[in-house]
């Protein structure tokens, strides 16, 4: 009797106990998933490659090695002696430096596209779903209309009319990337809207936008993050496809898609390394993102509470 009393007093008097948030639980689950952690390590390595690459590359990405020009198939093959670790491209430029540059651009495109989609799409969908009724109808019909336009066509038109530039590429990708996210966020918001804690907040007199930011968005975020990690690779694929068509980033800038395109054009000349190096980075990054996305989905699954 007295023992329990003293224990209770100890508990009551002690400093606040740190709780385990759902985020902390999800983090623990994520790090138990081997494939996801491997994917994360690959992604970190690719990101490190993009950031550190320029400082360790012996050649600049714009300089042409005149010694190998004209004899790329022999002198331009990957070797440690010449400093062309990944070989050179058809113009005698160092492929290592070019791949670093391509990685930077492709990751940038993927991450900017995903960010636009997360910020715009989530807010748009949450607002439409929360207010419902006519507002929801109008907002989602706008999304439907934008979705019905073949975006590849719009993207190509944009790049042709306003000239090919990195900025235009971001604009084009930003225009389309948020649509799916808005739909997902709206659907999730509709299920959250029926929760009693939303009603409690409304009954207390919390403002609608505060409810959206405080109650709806944090509960949406699990789904949104999973979708965003799967969106990054698809953005990279779009960009690569556009660049493969010759409409993407412009020389001297490059991206994985452009490098793969260049490499594929030289495939018959016995310089296969021009294709394999950018392709290797492209593929491992996509796999990395898919594994991480998969791991996040398992970790953040609301049914697992």
């Amino acid at each position: 009797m007295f023992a329990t009393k003293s224990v209770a007093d100890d508990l009551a008097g002690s400093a606040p106990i740190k709780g385990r948030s759902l985020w902390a639980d999800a983090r623990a689950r994520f790090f138990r998933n081997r494939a996801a952690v491997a994917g994360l390590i690959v992604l970190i390595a690719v990101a490190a490659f993009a950031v550190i690459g320029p400082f360790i590359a012996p050649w600049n990405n714009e300089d042409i090695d005149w010694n190998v020009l004209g004899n790329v198939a022999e002198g331009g093959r990957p070797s440690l002696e010449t400093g062309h670790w990944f070989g050179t491209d058809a113009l005698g430029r160092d492929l290592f430096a070019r791949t670093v540059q391509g990685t930077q651009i492709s990751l940038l495109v993927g991450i900017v596209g995903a960010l636009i989609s997360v910020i715009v799409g989530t807010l748009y969908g949450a607002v439409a779903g929360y207010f419902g009724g006519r507002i929801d109808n109008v907002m989602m019909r706008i999304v439907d209309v934008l979705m019905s336009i073949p975006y590849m066509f719009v993207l190509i038109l944009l790049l042709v009319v306003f000239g090919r530039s990195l900025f235009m590429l971001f604009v084009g990708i930003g225009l389309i990337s948020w649509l799916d996210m808005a739909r997902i966020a709206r659907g999730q918001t509709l299920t959250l809207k029926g929760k009693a804690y939303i009603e409690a907040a409304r009954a207390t007199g919390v403002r609608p936008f505060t409810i959206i930011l405080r109650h709806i968005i944090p509960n949406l975020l699990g789904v949104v993050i999973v979708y965003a990690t799967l969106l990054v690779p698809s953005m990279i694929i779009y960009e690569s496809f556009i660049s493969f068509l010759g409409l993407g980033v412009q020389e001297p800038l490059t991206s994985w898609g452009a490098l793969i395109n260049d490499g594929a054009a030289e495939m018959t000349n016995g310089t296969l390394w021009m294709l394999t190096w950018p392709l290797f980075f492209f593929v491992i990054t996509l796999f990395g993102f898919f594994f991480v996305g998969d791991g996040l989905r398992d970790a953040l699954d609301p049914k697992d509470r």
Partner: protein
Amino acid sequence: MSGPLLQVQDLSVTFDVAHRGSWPWTEPHKLQAVKQASILLEPGRTLGLVGESGSGKSTLARAIVGTVPVSAGRVLWRGADIAQMDASERRAHGRHVQMVFQDPLDALNPRMTVGQIVAEPLLTHMPDLSKAQVRTKVGAMMERVGLLPALVNRYPHEFSGGQCQRIGIARALITEPELVVCDEPVSALDVSVQAQVVNLLQDLQREMGLALMFIAHDLSVVRHISHRIAVMYLGRIVETAGAAELITNPRHPYTRALIASVPIPSPKAERARPRPVLQGELPSPMAPPSGCVFRTRCPIAQPDCAEASPPLTDLGQDHLVACPHHAEP
């Protein structure tokens, strides 16, 4: 105290239910969730609201709290019509009327700590409070509802159902409201925990002078806590009286059936007593029966019951019943 705290006059709530696969411009079905309900609640008193599922208890509560639009009638708070308030006055009014929900876990945001959940009404209505003041108030309130203040940084999923309901009560009481609407606060809990929560509510009512509106489908719980009980059937209040009077002297046939359905914890007595069991299901609120809505299941229904909806008549001692044939056996 002078005058009633809350007065509900002829309140009706109607929902639009669209036809399946209809055009957007076709007239939707009307679902009468609450029809012409009137309620009077004095400060510091408890009104129990009973009725089976779908009888409109929760809708009536939500109309009073203001999360469901009122289609007709008035809700008067200390004589002021809530429908006349503009958006900001209405938000400020939220401080006086709080709500406790049925499913305790569903009522707490899983991404927020208990401290944040309990503090939310405070941050809404008293934004000038310093962080330290908020922390002290939250700690004091948690202690008052029987939770360790050291648990403020825990998340809802780390608590049991009864504890979650205490958190919900702490959130409802932190702004020192005058009315707390409890929508089946104990239905989702174990019987032993039910008693704890009901007693907690009673203690808090005594300490803080709260008025309670207590919704349940379990008459024995309602009888324990209420001063006055109203019985609802298909959106109508069919009988209302003081708690003891209603239980010992039920007049409406539906109330009698409800009371007869409360089990007696003694098999012998249970078998010995007559039990008028209601036949059939609750009619659809989209197409309620004409006249008295209870006539389709009523053991004493007469031909004239189909003609007009019976008004609530006073039998004296504030005992109102909506059945002209209540004197018959």
